[in-house]
Every structure is written in structure tokens, then in C-alpha cells.
């Protein structure tokens, strides 16, 4: 039957995917809550602390990536090598004292990532290709300079980063503090507002005379500083650093940003969402670990969470436009 007359399209749910998505999401959240509540030892203070602690290092790096993503530069694929390089610098500089070493680390971190940001901002270079190149370059240089050896701390000051004021890891306080600062910067400053505008439509921002290059570079500089903080904590935690220090951080950070619901296309998202994303992934891994699932299953579920959030966010924003 080909006649299409008077057939009110039964497409109501398609035209308003928001509702369907909300339903699915609600079910998923309920299921997760039930799962969490029925997991032995999940609802303990110690476990909450553990979740926050394991979210903290990835979370801080992901906050940096959030700046990059909101500003329209998609992602950096050079997070792990940057963190490794800065971590090595941080530990070798321990003899200068903790503060000086931190300052030096943050300076180097901002420089490494900020340089990439300048190329992305001023030349409009493709951030993905650029950061692939940068990751080769950073790893190559770090290996060449260090001869591949592991850097051990030259003094003991770093250990203060492993402190646990009030029984909670320092990195958790830092994560929350930085998340608030980044969120405030994004919402309440001219820089933050420009970043959202540039991220949504770079051409329009340029034509409007916004300082696209400078703002992009600044976003990457900020990201570099945050990567450096992650590097310092990671190096201090491991008490040593080599070119592999970053591990899978690049993809973990991207996963946290995406799981928080910040779209990769830019112009939207927030630091608090990223915080939520990092905690969500950590909590899911934790539940699975407590229930005795293997690392493989934990990773798989992380992927599925990211996929579900990406699709959900996409459908919702599209829904609001239809």
C-alpha cells in the first residue's frame, strides 16, 4: 500500500527523542542504583573515598581536556606523554623543594600543551593530527633525554602530595577545588564565555572579531597546567616516573569528558559534568571490582557507559533543535 494520505505519521516518539531517551536513561540510572545498593560494601565511607581517589587523577586531567573540548578543539591525544614528561621533570626537581618543583612542573606543562594550543588557535591546525605529532615528539624527546631510565625523586618533599587531610586524599580536594575554579571560570569570566562562543562556531567568532587564536591558546595553556597537576600527583603517588607514566590517561580523560556529557563538537559542556563523568566511571569500575568482575569487564562497561552517554546527549540536543 503506497497511499500516504491521511496517515498521521506515527513518528511522535521519533520527533521527540528526548522523551524516549529520558525514559531509557531513567531506567539505566535506576538499574545502576539498584546494582550499587545491592553490592556488598559499596555504601561505605571507605569505598566512597576509594572511588573519589581513583577518579581524582583522571578527573584533574579531564578538567583540562574539558577546556580544550569546549573551546572547539575536540581532543588532545597527547595527554599521556605530556603527563609523563612533566612527571619526570617534577621528580627530578624535588631537590629544589616541593613548591619550586610544582611551579616548574606547571610551567613546563603549560608550555608543552600551550605551544600546541597556539598552533591550533592561531593556525587553525587540526588538533587531532597535531597532538598525534606532539605525542610522538614528546615521547621521543623524553626518551632521548632520559635515556629511557626511570626518574626517582631527588628529595622527599613530593610525599606531601600523598597526604590525606581528614582521611581523604589531597588529590580529591584538589580535584574538587579545581573543578569549582574551572566551572567558575567558564561561567563567570569573559574568557569562559568567549570559549563557548568560539567552540560553537569558530568562523562566526572570527568574523565577530573575537580573539579566537588567543582564547584557544589560553584554553590549552590552562589544560597544560591541569595536566601538570595530574602529573605531579601521579608521579608522587608512584614515587617514580618514566615515559610510560601517563599510561592510558589520554583515553581515560576523554572517556571521563564524554561520560560527563560534554559533546566533542565543542561549545557546550561544563567542568562539573566532567567531574560527574570521572566519578561515574570510577564508581562503575568499583562496583564491578567489588562484585568480582575482571579488568576486562570493567573496561568494557566503561566503553558502554561512554557510548550510552554520547548517544543520549546527541539525541537530547538534537531533540531540542527539532
Amino acid at each position, binding site marked *: 500500500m503506497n497511499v500516504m494520505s491521511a496517515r498521521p505519521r506515527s513518528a511522535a516518539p521519533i520527533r521527540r527523542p528526548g522523551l524516549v531517551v529520558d525514559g531509557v536513561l531513567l531506567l539505566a540510572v535506576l538499574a545502576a542504583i539498584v546494582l550499587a545498593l545491592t553490592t556488598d560494601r559499596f555504601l561505605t565511607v571507605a569505598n566512597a573515598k576509594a572511588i573519589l581517589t581513583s577518579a581524582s587523577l583522571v578527573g584533574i586531567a579531564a578538567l583540562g581536556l574539558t577546556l580544550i573540548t569546549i573551546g572547539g578543539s575536540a581532543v588532545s591525544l597527547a595527554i599521556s606523554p605530556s603527563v609523563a614528561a612533566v612527571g619526570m621533570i617534577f621528580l627530578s626537581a624535588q631537590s629544589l623543594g616541593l613548591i619550586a618543583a610544582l611551579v616548574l612542573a606547571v610551567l613546563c606543562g603549560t608550555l608543552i600543551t600551550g605551544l600546541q594550543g597556539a598552533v591550533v588557535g*592561531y593556525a587553525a591546525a587540526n588538533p587531532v593530527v597535531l597532538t598525534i605529532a606532539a605525542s610522538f615528539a614528546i615521547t621521543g624527546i623524553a626518551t632521548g633525554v632520559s635515556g629511557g631510565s626511570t626518574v626517582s625523586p631527588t628529595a622527599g618533599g613530593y610525599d606531601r602530595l600523598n597526604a590525606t587531610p581528614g582521611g581523604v586524599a589531597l588529590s580529591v580536594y584538589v580535584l574538587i577545588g579545581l573543578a569549582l575554579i574551572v566551572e567558575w571560570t567558564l561561567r563567570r569570566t569573559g574568557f569562559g564565555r568567549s570559549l563557548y562562543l568560539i567552540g560553537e562556531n569558530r568562523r562566526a567568532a572570527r568574523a565577530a572579531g573575537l580573539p579566537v587564536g588567543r582564547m584557544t591558546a589560553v584554553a590549552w595553556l590552562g589544560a597544560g597546567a591541569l595536566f601538570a597537576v595530574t602529573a605531579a600527583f601521579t608521579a608522587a603517588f608512584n614515587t617514580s616516573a618514566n615515559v610510560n607514566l601517563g599510561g592510558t590517561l589520554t583515553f581515560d580523560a576523554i572517556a571521563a569528558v564524554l561520560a560527563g556529557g560534554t559533546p566533542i563538537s565543542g561549545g557546550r559542556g561544563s567542568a562539573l559534568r566532567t567531574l560527574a563523568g570521572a566519578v561515574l566511571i570510577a564508581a562503575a569500575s568499583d562496583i564491578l571490582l567489588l562484585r568480582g568482575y575482571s579488568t576486562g*569487564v570493567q573496561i*568494557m562497561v566503561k566503553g558502554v557507559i561512554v557510548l550510552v552517554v554520547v548517544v543520549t546527549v546527541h539525541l537530547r540536543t538534537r531533540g531540542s533543535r527539532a
Partner: protein
Amino acid sequence: MRARRPEASLPVAALAVTVIAFVLVPTYTGSALTSFDVYNMFQILARLGLLTLALGLTMIAGEFDLSVVGTYAVGGMLTVQAGQQHWAWGLLAALGAGAAIGLLQGGLIARLKIPSMPVTLATYIALLGLTSALSGGLTKTYSNATVTLWVDQSLLTYFSPRSLITLGLFVVAAVVLSLSRWGRELRAIGGDRRAARVAGVGVDRLIVGTFVASGVLSALGGSLLSFSLGSANPDPGVQPLIVAAAAALLGGVSLAGGRGHPLGLLAGSLAVALLAEIVAVAAVPQYVSQLFFAGLLGIIVVIDAPDLHSALVRLRTRLRSSHHPRTSIQESADV
């Protein structure tokens, strides 16, 4: 006029540079190149070629399939686990899984019109987890030594069945895309998706098809590697992905899409394989080759960067106009 498009000559240039470097290696090592060096180069090509082709095809279509390494790992693992009885079962399982993964991702991306990078990143993570769960996180051994010996036996001096299959698939892809309308349609949906749709191109089907092809090719890549190594590693790491992306970019595709050809991808893969073989023959430290990659990709980024173009144009304009001072403004201020 055509010469204004430097990206078109990139694959040729990259290949030429590496071939020259390869030929010059003896002047550095002091011993002549052997036919084995060429054989080994093609073995390296066999390792990264199919991944590059898979990733490259999606890039031509304006997508970016980060999941290729995940599919590669799953394919390799299934080959070993399902192929203990007979290699064909392993291969079939791998290819089937690759196709299914491609179908799922392609369907999602085409139907929901969702950007492929975050989707395929998520699948990549999930697939790595799946592989690890399948194998209990352990490297699995493939006990059929006949197959292992067969895929890497030397053929026609320079080749092995594995490298010939890889080269053959590049040629097949090149022929299909040059002679059929799929080639231009693939570039059309990569260049301007809306326009292609309006022109009547079956965009959705093409995207799904591309992802299926990408999944099958990466799974086959994983299969061949497992046959060759006689084992499957649950986590190949990100290095294969990054190297394949580098090879694809050297092969003349762009992340913006709409550009590229399988032969260019082959040239890019060959360039990377040659480079790796140079590193092996000349026993250059690996970090030197990393710096070399960084340089090559840096050049690509610069060639592609639009605002750098503008800056150059501006500079050229300024230089030119400073040579020819114009009439005073007062005269021409008003028409």
C-alpha cells in the same frame, strides 16, 4: 593550476623520501641491502596496512573510526580462540565479528547522524575490554604452526602470503573505488554530506558499508597477525592506531574528509613500513623514528592549517603591495 593542491602530492612525496632514505641506508651501515630487507619491509606493511586501509576509508568518508584497533584485537583473539580446530573457523569468526561491529557502528552513526569520533572511541574501549574478558587478560597461543609458517613463507623473494593479501586488498579497494561510483560517492559524503544526500547519494547505506568494510579489514588484519605470531595479545595498545593514522594522513586523506584514494593509503603505509625497516636495518634508536614521525605529521598539519594559509597569503600580499606604492589616498578617497 592543479599544482596548488599540495596534499595531492603528499603520498608520492612521502614515499619518495622514504625510498631514497632506504636506498641510502647502506652508506650509513656499510653493508648492502638484501632482498630480505625488502621482504621484511613488506612484512611490516602487512602488520599496519589493513589497519591503515580501514581507517583511511572511513576518513575519506568524513568519519574517523578509532575502533579499528579494538576490532583488530577482537579479530586476533577470535582467530586464535575459534580457530584451534581449523584456521578457517577462526578467520570466519574474526571477519564475522568485524562485520558485525562495523554494522553496529555504521548503523548508529548513519541513523542517528552522530559524530563518529566519540562513538568509535567508546566502542574501542568496549572492544578492548571484550577482548580482555574473552581471554581472561592473557595472551592466547595459537598452536597450528603450519598456518604460522604458511602465512610468512617467502614468495617471489620479496613477499609472503600475508603481505600479498595485504597488497592485494589495497589493489582491490583501489580498483573498486576508481571504477565504480562508490569512489566518488565516498568522497562526496566526506566532502559535503548534505550536498551528496540532496544529489541522491545513498548516504546512510554508504556509511554503513564503509564501517563494515573498515571492521572486516581491521579484523582481518588482526587475524593475519595472530596467524603470523601464533598468538593473540588482548591489548595491542594505542601505538597501532596512532601509526595507522599517521600512515593514512601521509597517504593523503584528511580528517576533514572528502580526500584520498586507496593507492595513496598504500603509499602512506609503504612510507611508514620503509621507515620502520630503515630503523631496523640501520639499528637507529626507536625514539629517533618517533621524532621523524612527529616531523612528518607536523608538516601535514602545517599544510592543512587554514589560518596559516591565510597568514602566508597576507604576508605575500603585504610584500607585493609594499613593492608597488599606490597613489595617495587623498586623490582616491572619494569616487
